[in-house]
């Protein structure tokens, strides 16, 4: 690890509870938006507006999530983090890759399986891919925060 790595770190660690909360809002919000939008009968109305606000909340919570110290660890160059943090990061990206591959596979089933066409239109598939893209950006950070077992005296 670079001798300057300690100096490059943010002065204050983002609280783990905050990052976990933001990750639930972000990833849970995006998936809730997708599922509710899929189930809504029409594209307009008060209910649809509230579902749209859910997406805004999810977007709004993703931004501070990606500015947290856990996001720093998820995206920093190898020289800026130590071996344990690198191992945790590799594990987080491995599970994110599995999640993404599973989601893309599910998204492309209706493209090929004509029997699902009435149920899953291309608009739905497009929404699903958008949600997959956005949640994949946030997932490594979320995994690092949820798997962190640092005790309070070490923070």
């Amino acid at each position, binding site marked *: 690890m670079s*001798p300057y790595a300690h100096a490059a770190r943010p002065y204050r660690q983002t609280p783990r509870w905050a990052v976990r909360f933001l990750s639930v809002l972000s990833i849970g919000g995006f998936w809730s938006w997708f599922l509710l939008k899929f189930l809504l009968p029409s594209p307009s109305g008060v209910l649809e507006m509230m579902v749209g606000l859910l997406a805004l909340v999810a977007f709004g919570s993703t931004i501070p999530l990606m500015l947290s110290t856990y996001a720093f660890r998820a995206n920093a160059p190898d020289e800026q983090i130590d071996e344990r943090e690198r191992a945790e990061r590799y594990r987080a990206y491995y599970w994110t890759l599995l999640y993404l591959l599973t989601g893309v596979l599910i998204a492309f089933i209706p493209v090929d399986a004509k029997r699902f066409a009435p149920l899953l239109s291309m608009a739905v598939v497009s929404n699903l891919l958008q949600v997959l893209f956005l949640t994949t950006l946030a997932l490594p950070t979320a995994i690092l925060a949820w798997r962190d*077992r640092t*005790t309070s005296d070490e*923070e």
Partner: protein
Amino acid sequence: MIHNRITLFRTERGMTRKALAELVDVNPQTIGFLERGDYSPSVELALRLARVFGVPVDVLFSLDPFPSLADQIGSVAPSRPEV
């Protein structure tokens, strides 16, 4: 699982986790993870830790659990006559 005596050696020398972390060039949380057995170090990190404490690496780390220090002290201390 790799067992270690990092906490024992660190506290005997009056070292904080932060001080030890700076000597072996890792973050202080990693020392905590090592001490709890939540993370097994690489060979390089194990050797750096052993060098800091001035002991062979197999004194600091082991594949088998280390015997309890209290039991070891109790077994060599002279027995006192009962009053």
